[in-house]
């Protein structure tokens, strides 16, 4: 297996310098994610404008994959409508679980995470932030777990 497929430069960069890192005071929505297997912990903060995600920030303590995935996700969903985010979620799910899938063009930089699917033990690291985002969008406050 090729580690460079997993730890692509984009991922290493977002791990070293996570974007949208921090909290939003008086966030409209927030959620906590937890991966008990790894101990990855993630908090998401959202400011909404109707059904649009106006701003999103995160705090995380986890591995390179979970940190980079959350960082890339915040960039991808900021300014997007909920319906568009749902579609991205589905595309990410396919990207992380289907071996023969060609990454959808709509994923943009998120496609850098495609290497994760060759490392089954790490898929949950990449998907944690997306499940947490779903929880934040569905409820005002929630905790999700990968287990």
């Amino acid at each position, binding site marked *: *297996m090729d*580690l460079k497929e*997993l*730890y692509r430069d984009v991922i*290493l960069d977002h*791990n070293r310098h996570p974007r949208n890192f921090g909290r939003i005071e008086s966030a409209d929505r927030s959620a906590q994610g937890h991966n008990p*297997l*790894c*101990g*990855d*912990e993630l908090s998401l903060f959202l400011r909404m404008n109707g059904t649009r995600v106006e701003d999103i920030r995160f705090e995380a*303590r*986890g*591995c*390179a*994959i979970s940190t980079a995935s959350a960082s890339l996700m915040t960039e991808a969903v900021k300014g997007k409508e909920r319906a568009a985010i749902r579609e991205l979620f589905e595309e990410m799910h396919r990207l992380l679980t289907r071996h023969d899938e060609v990454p959808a063009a709509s994923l943009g930089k998120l496609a850098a995470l495609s290497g994760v699917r060759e*490392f089954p*033990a*790490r898929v949950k*690291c990449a998907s944690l932030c997306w499940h947490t985002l779903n929880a934040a969008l569905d409820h005002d406050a929630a905790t999700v777990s990968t287990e």
Partner: protein
Amino acid sequence: MAANLSPVASPALDVERVRRDFPILDTVVNGHPLVYLDSAASAQRPRAVLRAVEEYETHSHANVHRGVHALSQAATAAYEGARERVRRFINARSTREIIFVRGTTEGINLVAQAWARPRLRPGDEILISTLEHHANIVPWQLVCEQTGCTLKVAPINARGELELEEFLELLGPRTRLVGVAHVSNALGTVLPVKRVIEAAHEVGAVVLIDGAQAVPHSIVDVRALGADFYVFSGHKLYGPTGIGVLYGREELLAAMPPWQGGGDMILTVSFEKTTYNELPWKFEAGTPNISGAVGLAAAMDYLESLGLPAVAAHEQRLLQLATAELARLPGIEIIGTAAQKASVLSFTMKGVHPHDLGTVLDAEGIAVRTGHHCAMPVMTFFGLPATARASFACYNTEHDVSELVRALGKAREVFV
């Protein structure tokens, strides 16, 4: 136990010969020869164990304690022979004190439900340590919920050693049961269990020792220790999974009710009154893991043929070498620096999450455990989500240590 861990006069282990006994060590992982440094999670099996299991399954299998036919008698002889082998391995007084269980976890749950639950009352206390594996925490929490008794936890110091003074202060007339590990699975700390047992007995408490990480690395004599209950798993001792041992002093086991009902644990059954079987079968409802017991007995034969003192001395050399080598690497912090350790080296690398380390090492064919090691309170104590853990067994070599060091350098290149 400490005496058994110092390099006492014992013939050196012929590691290359030992390695030839373990066929799995020929495995190629991601293009590299396997470097297996995860024996504290599960040790590999020597050919002697694989053969004993196959021999039993091929020529002797039937149900035990049931039929008059030849195979049933052969299976019963093999199973009860394994029990006698275990008795000798830990120097128990009688095979009535050797209960076969699925593993350490089941053994502790058995004691929790059949000894503690019927006896403990609100105000009673169970005392454990911060170092415990979840299997020696959660069963007692369940008993606390069921009986209203209280769980007390003795602290550790920054080296990962039990704070004996504070442990002794927490012991008192309310303490009914003490449950501690013999060796910490997360840090490798060897606990002063003989002292713990003596002190607990002075206040009239019963003591359970979680020996899962101790039996592969030292001669355990349950009578010399004075343990009331001692539990361990077969698969950390080069035996099969799904088999383990609960040792209990006979008078304690005799006074306990069965914990599961079914076949084999009864003498007579009627709808009016059922009478229970004698020890040890009272605690072995249902058809047991016969081939597992056979494999475990073969593992004990194998380990004794190598000589436990020689194995322990070998592992100590590797542990000391790895500790010194890792301490020289930039960004590496060793977690758990107790004066007395066995087999286990837990560590972190600055700027690299243990799971990323684990993936990079795996790409180099090196198996280590990463995570909280089912000991989340230990991780919390050190303020860490996880560590990487290398553990050493009879088949590991200095080359394995240098491969680990080399791959850690590679991980640093990738992430830092």
